[in-house]
Structure formats: C-alpha cells, structure tokens
C-alpha cells in the first residue's frame, strides 16, 4: 500500500505549512533516498525556534547519555534544580552494582542554584557541593556538569575542579562546559563528554594484560544490552576491557588504553574517543553492530578476523551456530505475523540505522527513517566528512589536538596487515552510514518535527513507528503502535542473539494487537454488530434484516 504513496508529493505537502524561508531550510533535511547515488542531507543544523523537535540539549548528551551509565563517578549538576531532576535516572541504563560495588546512579546531585548564586556567582556553592559529595561518599571521581546559566554568570567549573582536586587529593574532579545552549542537540554534549573523558580519565589507570582485548564504545546498556554483549564476548573468549559507558566503572575507562581494538556501536556519540585513542595509543577501531542476530554474528566474525587467531575464529563460529538455532526457532514462530509489515524509525544517532537490521530479519520494510541528532556522516557515511561545512554551532565545540603518547603508543598491526584486513572487509575507521542500506525512494528525514511526524503517519499508516516517549502517545492516538527505542518500553534487552529473540516477540505482539480495532464502538460502525437473541428451545438466532 505504502509503495503507492508519492513521497515527493508528500514532502511538498509537509513543507507547505512552513513560511518560505523555513520550508527552504527543512527541504534540505527531507530527502528521497537513492542507495546508488547517496543524496546530500542537511543534518546537525540548529532546530528552527518554534518547531517542536525530538532533540534535547548539550547537557543531556553529556551528563545523561555518555557519563550517566557509569556507576562510580558522582555526576554533580551545577545549576538550578530542574536539569538535575529531569536527568535523574530517566534513561534506562542498567548497571551491575552487585556485591559492594559503588553505585551513584540512583542519586541526583545538584548545586540547586538560587537567585543569589545567579547574581553573585555560584563557584563557592559548587566547591561546597563537591566537598559535601566527597565527604559523604568518598568517590574516585566527580564530574561537574554545567547548565545554561553557568557560562553566563562566569563560573569557571574547570578552575573549581582543579582547585578541589588539589585540595581533596584522592579524587579526580573534572568539569564539563556542556551548557544547554551549546551546539544544536545532545550531539554537542557527546563531543564535550568525549573530550573530557579523554583528557581527564583515559590513560590514568594501569595497563591490563590479556588476550584478544577490546573496548566497546557507544553501548549504553539500555535494558541490559551491555550485559548481553558482555556474555557473548565472554563465551567467545574475547576480553572486554571497557564499555563506554554501559555498565562501566571509572577504573575501566582509566585502563581502556590497554585494549587492542576499539569496537564502535553508536558512531555518533563516541567516534571522537575512538579517533583520539588511535592517535594517542595506536588502537585501531572498527564499526560494529550488535543489534540484529545477523549483525551480531557479522560483528563477532570481524573481531575474530582482526585478531586472526584460528582458535578464536572457531570458537566464535561455534557460539554463533549455537545461538542462531534458538534465534531461528523464534523467528519462524513469529514471521507470519510480521512479514510484509512496515516500520518508520526516528530516533537517536545510530538506533534508527541499527534497528533496521532487526526489522529486516522480521520481513518488515523500513518506509522512512532519520536521526534526532545525527550528522551527515551518520547518514551518508564517513567519506563525506571532509565536505561537511563547519558552522558557528559546531565551531564552538572544542576539538582536542592529540599527539602520540611516546611511552604507551603501540601500533597494534602493521600497515600491510591493516591493508590486507581492510580488503577482507574489516573497514577500519569507517562507517558507511544509514542511507546505503535503505531502499530507493524511501524518505530520510533529519530532526523530524512533531508536525512532520503527524503528516508522515497520516499518509503512510506504518504498522509500527519507532521513536521515544515524547512521541509515543501522540502516535498511538493516531492508531499506530509506537516502539520506544530509547528506553525499549522498559523491556529488552534487544542486543545480541538473546536481544533479537526479545525484539522479535515484542514486535510480533505489537503489530498483532487488536486494541486499535476498538477505537470506535461497534454501534458506531454500520452493520458490524447485530443482536443475538436466545429463544427457548431453539438455537441462538442472529437477527439480520
């Protein structure tokens, strides 16, 4: 049905409502895909005021996304109470705090700025708050997250951090200038978080020994995804040094330079760390995807290929074969319910791409997709990076100059080995983006507005729409089920083989729910319900005229 819809016309209709200037700008962010010749899409450009966006702010990306999932760093919000409150355990990152592990994730620390702090400055209060947090919990590290007013009133969170680190002695304290107005979305906050983690934490720990050592970058353990990945890697005999930052701890970050390969899941939020670690320590990185059973298998094989060890390769094949058996069984069970259905995905900076793999496995077509805070490289692939125009918003985000660490730099593989592996399909330092995978003529829309979303659903009526909680109830009012891909509707995990099984079941359930048939009462629909009378001594008779 959906293939009959003229997407070009739909795009023009969506733009109709906007004033000419806004329409011109939005048009560049709404493109018809052509996998053979990837068109340019406008992305990572500031949302126009008054357009209701899915995007959050720099603070959210820094504190909520990247640092939020680490259990033993105290996250202290410097600002009025709202920001700290709204980011308090709202993302569903899980952590394993069993035993006597420290876990500060259930706490919300804020300097709770008041009027006088705005007028006279808040540094004194900040330092007191740091001291209080230290006195109560004695953490290894404290991160300070700046909210909007901080930069304006001239508080220097970095100076305060330095002073307090010196004063306290055994606590690593560092600040983030992630004021909400910086950059165009969460994405700016990711970059700021990457920079400060690299500057203040990575490399501070001891070097860890081991075989087949990797880091998993950009996996935030929503719904327990990181646990699943940890299990698979362990089964395969691959040693995980650190995950950035699902189920992570400070010491893992500090020692992460010990790994021999960085595997990047969410390219958008963490590619900076991957690049900087390669530069400084000589660790190569590859893009992986553990969302989807086939993608998981492929990612594992690529990791094994990198290490080139036959024993490892065999073990990986054995794990894949075992796991795929139960995956196939569940898929076969649900396939008839999901095959031929359609989906739209507007979420995140990688999820809108990754989850298309899971939908493909279920025979579900992706009609339209886009990111909330992606950049052009997440759509079109990293090859376009040199052509991305730097605007005022991205210029203001610091780019660290990284040089080789003379002592610890260790080129993991020779140039020749790297070349050979590249040819085998390892694709070092590359990400091909979302668009090459999508069908011709499908809509790719960056920073989908609430209004555009409504138009898209009205026309296409997809069987399932993927976004977040802000969109969930609006979409469901339109009779279309929405799958939350930030929090997984509090379900999951969806990563790896086990996650694929969960996802298959959840989506099958979602597309076969009959609640939508109940939107109108039967007596409001003509001829759909007739009374049944029971006459004594005779079978029930359906009365029809």
């Amino acid at each position, binding site marked *: 049905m959906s293939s009959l819809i003229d997407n070009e016309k739909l795009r023009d209709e969506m733009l109709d409502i906007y004033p000419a200037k806004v329409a011109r700008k939005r048009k560049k962010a709404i493109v018809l895909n052509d996998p053979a010749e990837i068109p340019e899409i406008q992305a990572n450009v500031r949302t126009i005021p*008054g357009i209701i966006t899915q995007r959050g702010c720099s603070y959210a990306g820094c504190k909520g996304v990247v640092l939020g999932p680490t259990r033993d760093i105290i996250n202290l919000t410097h600002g009025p109470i*709202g920001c700290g*409150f709204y980011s308090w355990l709202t993302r569903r990152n899980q952590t394993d705090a069993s035993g006597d592990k420290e876990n500060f994730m259930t706490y919300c620390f804020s300097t709770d700025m008041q009027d006088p702090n705005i007028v006279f400055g808040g540094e004194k209060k900040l330092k007191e708050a740091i001291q*209080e947090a230290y006195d109560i919990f004695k953490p290894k590290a404290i991160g300070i997250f700046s909210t909007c007013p901080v930069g304006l009133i001239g508080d220097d969170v970095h100076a305060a951090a330095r002073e307090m680190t010196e004063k306290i002695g055994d606590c690593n304290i560092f600040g983030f200038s992630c*004021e909400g107005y910086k950059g165009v979305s969460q994405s700016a906050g990711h970059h700021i978080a990457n920079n400060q983690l690299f500057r203040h934490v990575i490399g501070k720990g001891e070097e860890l020994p081991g075989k087949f050592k990797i880091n998993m970058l950009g996996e935030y353990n929503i719904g327990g995804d990181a646990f699943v990945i940890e299990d698979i890697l362990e089964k395969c005999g691959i040693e995980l040094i650190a995950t950035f930052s699902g189920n992570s701890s400070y010491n893992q970050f500090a020692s992460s330079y010990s790994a021999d390969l960085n595997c990047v899941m969410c390219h958008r939020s963490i590619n900076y760390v991957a690049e900087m670690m390669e530069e400084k320590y000589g660790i190569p990185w590859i893009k992986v995807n553990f969302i989807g059973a086939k993608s998981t298998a492929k990612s594992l094989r690529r990791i094994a290929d990198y290490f080139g060890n036959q024993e490892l390769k065999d073990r990986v094949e054995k794990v894949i074969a075992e796991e795929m058996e139960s995956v196939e069984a569940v898929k076969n069970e649900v396939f008839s319910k999901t095959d031929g259905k359609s989906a739209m995905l507007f979420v995140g900076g990688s999820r809108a791409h990754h989850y298309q793999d899971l939908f493909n496995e279920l025979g579900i077509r992706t009609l339209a997709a886009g990111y909330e805070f992606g950049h052009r490289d997440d759509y079109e692939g990293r090859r376009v990076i040199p052509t991305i125009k730097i605007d005022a918003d991205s210029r203001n985000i610091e780019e660290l100059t990284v040089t080789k660490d003379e002592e610890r730099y260790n080129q993991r593989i020779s140039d020749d080995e790297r070349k050979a592996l590249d040819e085998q399909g390892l694709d070092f330092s590359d990400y091909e983006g979302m668009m090459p995978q999508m069908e011709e003529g499908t809509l790719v829309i960056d920073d989908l507005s609430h*209004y555009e979303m409504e138009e898209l659903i009205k026309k296409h009526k997809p069987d399932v729409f993927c976004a977040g909680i802000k969109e969930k*109830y609006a979409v469901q009012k339109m009779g279309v089920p929405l799958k939350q891909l930030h929090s997984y509707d509090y379900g999951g995990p969806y990563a790896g083989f086990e996650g694929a099984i969960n996802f298959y079941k959840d989506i099958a359930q979602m597309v076969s729910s009959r609640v939508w048939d109940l939107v109108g009462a039967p007596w409001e629909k003509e001829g759909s319900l007739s009374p049944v009378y029971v006459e004594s001594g005779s079978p029930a008779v359906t009365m029809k005229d």
Partner: protein
Amino acid sequence: MSAEVQNYQSAGNPCRQCMPLGASWAFKGVKGCIPVLHGSQGCATYIRRYMISHFREPIDIASSSFDETTVIFGGQENLEKAVLNVFNQYRPDIIGIATTCLSETIGDDIDRFVRELKKNQPGLCTLVPVSTPSYQGTQEEGFHRTIYALVKNLAGAGEVHAGEGPALNFFLPMITPADIRWIKDITKAMKGRAVVLPDISETLDGGLWEEYNAIPPGGTDQEEIKSLHLSEASVELGTVLPDDWRPGYWLQKQHGLPNLQAALPLGVDATDHFMKLLEDVLDCPVPPEFMEIRSRLTDAYADAHKYLYGKKVVLFGDTSTVEALYRFTSEIGMNPVFCFTGSPSGILKKAIEKLGTPPVSTTAPLVMEDCDFGDAEGIIEEMNPDMLIGNSKGYKIARKLDIPLLRVGFPIHDRFGASRQRMLGYSGTLNLLDQIVNMLLEKKQSDSDIGYTYI
C-alpha cells in the same frame, strides 16, 4: 529533631522541579494552547518527557531554541520566530510563553517582547507571557504564577458567560485529571457550572482519537477566562498562597468578585466543608447520592480503624498534596510523623502548624521545607514509619528501608494510571483509604512467616 539533619549546600535527590514545568502544566489546561519555553530547547524536551512519562498523553511544548549568539544578543528574534512558527503549524487559540533560567539570566524583557510582537503581527492568536526563572521557587510557584498571568491578561474582557447555570471559578493546585472531573461533576450535580483553570481533565487524560488532533481537545476556553469576573464567585482550594499567586484575590480586588477559600476536599471533614461551601454559594442542597457515598465512607473509616490506628506515616511532595494528606491521615487515626517538601515557600510549615498535632499523637510532627530525599532518608530510617505516601521519587528510600510507598502526586512514573488517581470528595477519599489499608495489609501479610489469609 535529629542531630543528623545537616544543612547541606547542595541538593541530593531533590523533592521539587522547576518553575517552567509548572507553567507548562498550567498552559496545557487551556483550550487550544501551546506553551513556548523561552530558552534552550532542552528545557522543553526534558519537561515534555517528564510530564509525558507521568500522564502518558501527547504533550507538545515548543522552544525558542537559544544558541550562543542568542545568549549574547538577546532572545527577542528567537521568540518571534518561535511564536510565528507555532502559530503557522498548529493554529492555536493561545500561545503561552514562559521564561527559563537562561532567558531570565540574560535579562530578556518578555512582557515588552510580547507587546511588540502583538503590535507587529496583528493577525496572531492570544499571547500570554509569564516570568518563571528556574532558579527561584518550584514547579508549584510556576504553576500558580501562570494561572495568575492568564487571569490578569485575559479576565475582564468578556461580556457574557456562555454555558448554563451559575458559574464558579475554580483555582486548584496541581491535582489529577480525574479529580478535576469530580469537581466538575459535583458542581453540575448542584446545578452550578465549574470553570476550572487550568482544566487538564481532558487534555492530559484523553481517549483514543478517530481523527488526529494537532492540539488535544479540552481545556479551559479562552472566552471563559475572559469572563471569569462575571462568575458567581471564585473558589480557591488547597493551601493559602501568597496574594500575588492568587487569581481569586486579583478578581476580588479588580472586579469585586467574592473569593472563597477552602482546603482540598480530602477526608470527611474537608469534604463536608467543601460541600457546605457549594451549598451556600449555589443555594442547592447536596444531592442524596453524594450523602450515600459519605455514609459508606464513614462506615469504611470505622471498619479500617483497627488497621490504621497509630500507624506512622511519612508524607512528601508538593505543599498542597502534603497538607491535604496530613489532614486526612490525622483524621483516619494515623500518625503523620514527618512531612517534607522541596518547596522553600514557608507555606507548608504554616499550614501544618495551623492544623496542629494529630489526635493520635502527643508530639507535633516534624515538618521540613526545602528538603530533599537525601536529607529525609536518615530521618525516615530513624523514625521507622509504617508507610510512605508521596511521589515515585520516594521509591529509593522505600526500597532501602522496606517500607511500603503509596504513590500520590507528581511525578508517578513507576505505576500505571497516575492521571486517574482519585483522592478528592467522599468517593476519592474512599479510594485513597482503600489503597492505604490494602497496602498496610499487604505488608503485614508478606512479612508474616505463615501467610495468613484472614487479616
């Protein structure tokens, strides 16, 4: 009371939100209204996601999306763009504009911006600005200030009241959609008409739609707000607020409209007072079916007494909810030993002092304002209460200390049906009473080694 209560500079696990959330809540209760938060887009996004996780309804809030140049040059141009774009996309009847810490810190004069915008764009819908800097007050203050701004900007302009029956203006605290529906029903049953501002009963607790609505149906009609001064009287329920938060007070001062004040009708006594107030002002007796529920409620009080008597309870949340719960739990024979709120307004302390010590106790309760869960935890541990009543954020303490938590107030994001939670009137009180008793029974049962089924 406890020597362990320290005066911390920072907040650990806060028990309050910021003013713009309250402003958004209030604007969502006005028909055809879209709120615009003047500041960074993160404020709108955080507040949307937070309110949506509580109400489970679409909540659109726009933003003027500041960038670094806006911060330097001021937000007037951004606000103008935001208002025009919202107007073009949604054709709202009204756009409510609330400030944030960012726009207030740079000193944006929101009233002037709106005046100039109205002058330059005469075809626009109604615009109502309100100043809600997040570094002052709490969500409650933002909520009340917004209602005050709506009334001050609009009331007085209308010439007639549409609708039948004598109209009563209701100014309520942040109560649930279901409780607002009850207020409307009882007023109607007594031949009156409730004009509730803001009325979230439909906007934040609606049904499935056959056709998509860009702005959810329901809410207080702007025309009704314009004619508030023509009603019979204003009724303010909840704690007594400062005068400049009180639209009823403003209508009285400006238009001579009688302004009646009463407690939130939770519990027999408070509901009786409220019913009497309605009887007097509407000149109509309380219908017998409501008295039947009253009778059932007092019967339930008697039956529940053995479970509730002397049980220690800790109450927390916004001031109006905590005050109402204090009055109610005292009435049913419980012992509210500790009440706390994140609000530093002084309102709760005053209100509870006025209510006095619960009949079951000889010592006054501990009341803390500007209190967070971090401060409260040690106190609760020491007091070892039987139950906690408050919002979802109390769960951490409830879990740690193994004390049952009844979810009431905002936010509730770990239970279903927050918008349908009833606690007002005889019927709402009965609902809350049942829940309290059952929660205590459940705890008793699950703590028992044997697992008795007659309790």
